[in-house]
């Protein structure tokens, strides 16, 4: 008697299976009155929604009005056909990784990290690399099996690749936090193209991370892996370890 979900046709859920109910909030250059409300309804109805309820609106000044609405979509998604690329290596803690590398790779790996180009947000790459770590996980600098260098913020792709060549790096870690106007895509693409041009793309692992990055996007951009919000040094270290063990 419990509710039964058909995974080939899932829909948004408010409080009844398949009601399709969603919440919307947006502004329009329209007046804060019944006419504006109607305009807001039309926006939603053109998006294929019905049972549209404009439950709130407020004048924002300068000719704009804010609307909050609920409405039903008839869109369905087939969950069974969605295959997303994700990092699938098991996650080991620091000790396990150290032992694993010792046993399976038998040498120290050199890791170079940076937040590249115009981006100055180092907290993310620091979380992965710094000695003191983040959320009770030590960063790569503390791992015996890694020789880790964090170049910090606003490092150009040129500088990063030069340093990698200098230290004969095994792994490159790139962080991109700012995403306005898709700047992260541009920067990440620039780096990988430069690496290809220099013929070093396949000599190293290229990993990237940031709040709007996931594994799928990273692969698309030509990287070996991508790590989003809530990633830890353990995830990255394990991925590196397994990858190099396999390669060997």
């Amino acid at each position, binding site marked *: 008697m419990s509710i039964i979900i058909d995974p080939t046709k899932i829909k948004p859920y408010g409080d009844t*299976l398949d009601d399709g109910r969603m919440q919307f909030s947006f502004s329009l250059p329209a007046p804060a009155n019944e006419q504006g409300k109607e305009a807001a309804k039309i926006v939603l109805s053109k998006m294929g929604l019905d049972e549209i309820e404009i439950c709130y609106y407020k004048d924002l000044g300068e000719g704009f009005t804010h609307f909050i609405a609920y409405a039903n979509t008839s869109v369905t998604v087939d969950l069974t056909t969605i295959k997303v690329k994700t990092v699938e290596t098991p996650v080991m803690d620091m000790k396990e990784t150290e032992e694993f590398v010792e046993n399976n790779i038998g040498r120290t790996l050199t890791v170079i990290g940076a937040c590249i180009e115009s981006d100055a947000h180092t907290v993310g790459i620091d979380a992965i690399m710094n000695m003191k770590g983040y959320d009770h996980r030590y960063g790569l600098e503390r791992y015996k099996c890694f020789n880790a260098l964090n170049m910090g913020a606003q490092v150009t792709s040129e500088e990063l690749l030069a340093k990698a060549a200098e230290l004969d790096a095994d792994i490159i870690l790139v962080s991109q936090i700012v995403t306005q106007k898709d700047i992260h895509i541009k920067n990440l693409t620039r780096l990988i193209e430069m690496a290809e041009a220099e013929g070093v793309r396949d000599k190293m692992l290229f990993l990237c991370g940031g709040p709007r990055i996931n594994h799928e996007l990273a692969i698309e951009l030509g990287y070996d892996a991508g790590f989003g919000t809530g990633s830890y040094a353990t995830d990255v270290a394990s991925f590196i370890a397994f990858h190099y063990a396999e390669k060997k």
Partner: protein
Amino acid sequence: MIQLSIDKKKIENARAHAKEIVTSLDWLLQDYTSSTIERTVLRLMGIDNAIGETPIPNIVVDHLIEKKAIERGSAYWVANAMVAEGKSAQEIANGVAAGELDLTAIPAQANEAVMKALDELTETMLNKIKAQTKYREDAHKKFGPRKKPSLYVIVATGNIYDDVVQAKAAVREGADIIAVIRSTAQSLLDYVPYGATTVGFGGTFATQENFRIMRKGLDEVGEEIGKYVHLTNYASGLAMPEIAAMGAIERLDVMLNDAMYGILFRDINMKRTLLDQYFSRMINAYAGIEIQTGEDNYLTTSDAIEKAYTVTASQLINEQFALISGIKHEKMGIGHAFEINPTIENSFNYELSHALLAKTLLPNCPLKYMPPTKFATGNIFRTHLLNGMFNMISQMTGQGVQLLGMMTEAIHTPHLVDRAIAIENAEYVFNATKNFTDEIEIKKDGFINKRANTVLDEANEFLAGVAQKGLFNAMAEGEFADIKRTEDGGKGLKGVFKKDANYFNPFMERMKAELNLN
């Protein structure tokens, strides 16, 4: 804990007035019974089921009313028939329902035999209820006590099976108490619907089957995550004690069970309501069920500042009615609400003052605190923030049960995600301000303290007036919530009966004895 500075005398006075109001109704509570009380007795004797929409307990009681035999109590008649026919209570009731049996026509059996039959039935049912109480206590021993303030959320899809899914999700997110909202206006039904509800309106009916389905779901998820999850519903309206009995049997943990709600907000006859609440509360007391009262209702129609004293007055009256039914303070979820207009300057200070007054008057009660509803708008962000301030006041004043405010209060009954967001809100605020009140003192000469004293003074004056003229007269004059109700008006008066000399209610007797009531 922060303290108000209030003259103890004032509190004693107010309480004394409330006690006077309640004890002056002794004549009613001791000498009268009602159709639903008698149906409750039958249910406790094990009689269940319905024919069409009509529950068999209703058929049997209506039969006794028709035969002018109800004044002796339904227990006797059914037991007498059981002895005479050698059948079970259910079989006898079925016979009546089928029109095959006239209970009053069956010859009187030996009194001892009848009493023995009743004793056995009483013993069986009370043991069953005790087993449920023990189950609850054991579960708490195993998993620890309920959090304070507890996170209370409602499910209100109208389909009990959807409700279970939503309730389980809420529990996983941190809910401590699940309230299954009733299909609207069940108060006005002079019976308890039968079976599982799948198309209720704004909720499901309070039925024994629904109780059972949800209890099972909550026990499952509770075992899984290591928590005893409380279940609540409404023992309210024209079938109040029957619902209480079902709750006792199906192990509900909390029951909305107000002494005066039915009179004021549902126009149920006052004698009927007061009688029914007396027995329903006794059942709750016996089963270790925590009751909750409905003071928030005053503030949905009246101004929360102007009429704050009506909340206080009602709290003290509800307390006295609970005490005479054997409910301990630890099980009295006296109500109040965060309903001050948020555009008012210092609304936070007002709310803090009112909430602190409630806690000061009823320090050992798991107070039930209702969220902002009236001033919730379609602006979900603003409503979410109001709920945050409400949560903070709750943490600061040591409320017992926090009815979580929903950011969509002004829009729809809660969606799955609304509940999750509400729980997250409360958990953040409770944790962030956990020991805040250890850090501060309330100034004696400040507004908060003065305001609480003013409200108490107003309540005191009001209660004194009511005590003087009597609760019935006061209600007739519209003293409560500006609503006028007369002693012989309202629904359900026909179901009130004066007991005769032979009247016998084996359950009430046993409960009174065990609860040490006179």
